[in-house]
């Protein structure tokens, strides 16, 4: 049917008129399950705390005040900046960044390895990568704790091999939290990087080698820039959930590894909780994540423009 446009169906307006009705279900889902909860969270962060958990419908900035400002023990001193929560945030960002780096360092070679196998083997490798994720995250994290505890299999086998004399105190350390985050989110790095590397044209590496580039130069100047969108996607997919993670820090870490996720989690538990404060922390966290995404989108736009 070249040339003449299709006449609109009799009595109707054609597909164009159906666009909005067809989008309604998608909008409903996004609205009810994503925008509404976020809105609720924002509203709650401005409410007053009820003693046994829950809220009173009195609008106040108390939650944000508690987060950012310190007015002394009895609340009557001139306000100074409250570092407690900011430092928890800072530590969480740091932990998440480290976990992202670890995932990248392991995930990139893994993705590269899979992408360079013959096509038939790739699906098998990808399948193997996803197998642990059939098991619930909580169970996996608990298993990891079991694995690395003082008289767990890891320490036992290291000791029976004679590599160490005393068990390594791994649980309740930063390292354990790192391990937990790394283990939880590694596939989120491997999969997008794999997708990018699989599309990578290896003739580009040959062309660069032909033009006197060595292996590392090829990696730095050709491969990494070309697969960058996959790497950026992987980093975001690891960084964002790591930042808000609470299972790994809760189960594997101790007081010194307290992260944002645990802080929020605690605010909604029993009578100790403080819903408005938990909501306010979430709002701050979400704002930060949005900033990261915006920065990434701008960087991507810059990359596309050259």
């Amino acid at each position: 049917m070249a040339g003449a446009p299709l006449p609109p169906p009799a009595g109707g307006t054609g597909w164009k008129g159906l666009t909005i009705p067809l989008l309604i279900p998608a909008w409903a889902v996004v609205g009810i399950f994503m925008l509404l909860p976020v809105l609720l969270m924002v509203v709650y962060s401005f409410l007053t705390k009820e003693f046994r958990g829950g809220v009173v419908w009195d609008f106040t900035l108390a939650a944000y005040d508690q987060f950012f400002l310190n007015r002394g023990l009895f609340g009557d001193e001139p306000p100074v900046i409250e570092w407690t929560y900011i430092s928890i945030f800072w530590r969480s960002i740091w932990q998440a960044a480290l976990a992202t780096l670890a995932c990248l360092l392991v995930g990139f070679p893994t993705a590269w390895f899979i992408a360079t196998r013959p096509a038939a083997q790739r699906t098998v490798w990808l399948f193997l990568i996803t197998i642990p994720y059939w098991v619930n995250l909580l169970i996996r994290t608990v298993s990891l704790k079991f694995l690395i505890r003082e008289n767990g299999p890891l320490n036992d086998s290291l000791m029976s091999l004679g590599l160490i004399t005393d068990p390594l105190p791994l649980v309740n350390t930063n390292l354990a939290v790192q391990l937990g985050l790394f283990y939880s989110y590694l596939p989120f790095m491997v999969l997008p990087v794999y997708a990018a590397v699989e599309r990578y044209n290896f003739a580009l590496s040959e062309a660069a080698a032909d033009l006197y580039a060595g292996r590392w130069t090829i990696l730095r100047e050709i491969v990494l820039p070309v697969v960058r969108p996959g790497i950026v996607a992987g980093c975001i997919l690891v960084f964002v959930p790591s930042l808000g993670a609470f299972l790994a820090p809760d189960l594997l870490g101790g007081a010194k590894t307290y992260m944002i996720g645990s802080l929020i989690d605690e605010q909604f538990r029993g009578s100790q909780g403080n819903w408005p404060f938990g909501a306010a922390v979430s709002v701050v966290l979400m704002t930060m994540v949005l900033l990261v995404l915006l920065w990434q989108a701008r960087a991507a736009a810059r990359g596309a423009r050259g």
Partner: protein
Amino acid sequence: MSTAIDISSVVKRYGTATALHGVSMEIRDNEFFTLLGPSGCGKTTLLRCIAGFEDVTGGEIRLFGRNIAALEPNQRPVNTVFQQYALFPHMSVIDNVAFGLKMKGVALAERRAVAGRMLEMVHLSDFADRMPAQLSGGQQQRVALARALAPAPKVLLLDEPLSALDLKLRQAMRVELKTLQEQTGITFVFVTHDQEEALTMSDRIAVMSQGRVQQIGTARDIYESPHNRFVADFIGETNLIEVDVTAVSGGMADVVLPGGHRLRCPAETTATGRHHLSIRPERLSLTGTGELTGTVERVVYLGTDLQLLARLADGTPFTVRLQNSARTQVPEAGATVGLHLEEGAARLLAD
């Protein structure tokens, strides 16, 4: 003249498949050398072995006398124009062209200047700041050429660099490439499956088939004196007629044509028995009674030429090319014609 690339008995296997069965050739310095052959005959494979992307399974390749087996691709003074261009998608045209110089440690100002000159040479100066994705196929191909030429390699390998261009541009680029090669004095190893391209540009041509070299020679050599059936058939148009060879001596053979006529002609084989005779269509003329007799089936008008499709008494198809002049007497379809073989028109081929 000295030898640029000396390829001796190179074998390349991929698992159980053999892409090159003992290929030998000597490519001279400053030569425009062409590898010509049908798809899958191993042209790209041979180029990749020279560039270093593939290790040879057997034999050796010497570059200016030096065995290069141990050299990585980035250590070989050889640049490649890839069949699929392989331009760096994240770099502008000028950065692509300057990449080789950058890797050689040339300073920014100088490599920009050289890259600019290269772009001028391929008529892409106005496109220096574009990204490869914003170029047409032909423009990309010219960037690939400029990129490979910029570091001034001793040898340039070109893998079907003109295949993506339309006829007009292809013809223009042929002339330009040839001029470029003469100006720069760089040895060109040029791959193509287009025989016309090969014949018009090359100093010498290696005709390949199924991983073997069939013949190496100038365009004239391989067109006028093909060694075997493959070369005769692949290069230009030819008539292949099965004949009885009664005697061969001193490079000449006595053969019996279908129809019983006897003929003495140059021979590429020393064996008697049944072999093929090659006769170029333009080396035949029509007479009342000639060495061969056939029935005209069709006359095709080609403008400057007329093509006569005929059949011998034993059914062998046959083509004759006649110049389209006022004096040419054109037989009707169905007419019986005698064919006269010009002096040296026939050549007995090896199988």
